[in-house]
């Protein structure tokens, strides 16, 4: 019993930085996992990666003007991310071009611009450190930011839930009964940017993109409804955070990759053992029912 306590509870009970890391990553799971589910269902799973590059010019401008401070850089990143997301979304809605191509074009332009701006200041080591921060060094400012983002995201998802589902499931139907279709897409893109940008600077790119997509991808193998899928993704995200932080503490591994690898293990298990995974859908067919 004591050994169990030493393994599972003590690291969080004894160290403030572990508590902060746990709180921050759990809050991020709560808000970004459901967003990831919708990204996946819209076949925009790689958007997170693209956005990670797209925020660079905004963060760089914040850095140039105010130095290494999380708030101006977050706001700058948010603005750049939203410009890219809305620009790419608008091009795909108004022209023949699909969202994957317009997103690629916009983020590449943004990335090039960001690298140019960063080079104005000479060394970019500090900037990179803050851009791709670490979960073990969360201060109050960063925790507050993540909490705010989680609140805004959950409120946004709650209000627009029905429209989000309708827009994914049957966009033409939504257009025929309501004018909410295009706006809800942009609201959703804004939520994606909000979660990614906040996450990047508090926790690092890998952690925020990974925590958004891996639990969602894993949850897909277990259920055929959206609501349970979102809840399951949040659960998988939370378990991965706890497991990853413990792993990182006991084995002295970097925390971000530990959390994401934990989620990766859940994903791998889900592919094989999920109710809609390989075993259930491919291997069970030795016998079949009469009707």
């Amino acid at each position, binding site marked *: 019993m004591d050994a169990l306590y030493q393994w599972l509870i003590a690291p969080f009970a004894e160290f403030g930085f572990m508590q902060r890391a746990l709180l921050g990553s759990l809050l991020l799971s709560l808000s970004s996992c459901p967003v990831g589910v919708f990204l996946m269902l819209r076949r925009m799973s790689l958007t997170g990666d693209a956005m990670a590059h797209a925020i660079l010019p905004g963060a760089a401008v914040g850095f140039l003007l105010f130095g290494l401070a999380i708030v101006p850089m977050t706001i700058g990143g948010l603005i750049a991310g939203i410009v890219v997301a809305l620009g790419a979304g608008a091009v795909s809605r*108004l022209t023949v071009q699909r969202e994957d191509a317009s997103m690629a074009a916009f983020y590449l332009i943004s990335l090039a611009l960001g690298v140019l701006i960063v080079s104005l200041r000479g060394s970019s080591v500090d900037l990179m450190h803050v851009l791709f921060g670490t979960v073990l060094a969360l201060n109050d400012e960063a925790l507050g930011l993540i909490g705010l983002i989680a609140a805004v995201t959950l409120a946004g998802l709650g209000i627009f839930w029905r429209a989000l589902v309708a827009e994914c*499931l049957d966009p033409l139907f939504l257009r025929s009964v309501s004018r909410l279709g295009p706006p809800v897409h942009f609201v959703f893109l804004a939520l994606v940017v909000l979660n990614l940008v906040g996450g990047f600077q508090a926790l690092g790119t890998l952690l925020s993109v990974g925590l958004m997509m891996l639990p969602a991808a894993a949850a897909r193998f277990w259920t055929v409804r959206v609501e349970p899928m979102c809840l399951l993704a949040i659960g998988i995200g939370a378990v991965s955070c706890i497991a990853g932080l413990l792993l990182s503490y006991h084995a002295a591994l970097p925390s971000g990759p530990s959390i994401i690898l934990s989620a990766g293990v859940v994903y791998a298990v889900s592919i094989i053992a999920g109710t809609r995974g390989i075993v259930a859908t491919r291997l069970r067919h030795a016998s079949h029912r009469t009707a």
Partner: protein
Amino acid sequence: MAEACITFSDFTLGYNSHPAVHHLNGAVKKGSLTAVVGANGSGKSTLMKGIVGVLKPMAGACAVAHGTRIAYLPQQSELDRSFPARVVDLVSLGLWPKRGLLGRHRPEDREAVANAIKAVGLEGFEKRPLDTLSGGQLQRTLFARVLVQDADLILLDEPFNAIDAKTVTDLVALIKRWQGENRTVMVVAHDLDLVRAHFPEALLLARRPIAWGEARATLAPENLLRARQFHEAWDENAPWCSPEAETGGHDHGHSHDHHGHDHGDGHADHGHAHGHPHLHAKPASADARHIHGDAA
């Protein structure tokens, strides 16, 4: 004379300044049941999109009576069948006009959904995921959603595609019930016998209206012959129809969608042989048109 549900005045719809529905005039009476008939590319689906408002007119206007609730069942649904939803979830989308974004779904709403599923013969399928349904079952699910929408004007674009005979009979009965409830129904259909047997009125399109009125008279042999004599491929060098046609700024994206539909739906028409007509680099000469005609 019943009041009009839809009034067309010089209604012209199209893509890339080429009309697909040209100068349509007339009215659809409230409580009428009209079949929209014509060859591939004659503008049937385009007309439906124009009435719903998904496609903006190039000229003229289409006035839908004030306060009319529209239900639209497109030919090529943008439905994502891999989306994790059940039959009952899809049918419940039909509650949108009544409950909107935030309104609670009440017990009577759930009952309406259950009744609609029963009415299309899908009892017991409520909890089935969409990706396990057959094409016909999915179509009936979409019919159930139209039922739940409780609309005054119902537009069905080729609802009988890939549906077995028994289901067609059931769906036609449903459509007639709608008409009995004084709803206005317009149905795009290809089966002329079905139209003659069940539809009081018909509109025959060949990009422009050929005939419109009592179904049997509209579908008389001479009208059908006239309807066949149109060029499905449009002429890049066709003269401008009127000054206002020239200014029609319209969405480029739709033209591709439209042709995707026409060529993708498996009808053996000559469109496959030469791809998108509007992508032709050289102007369509008299010879080129002759070839189109032959192939058709």
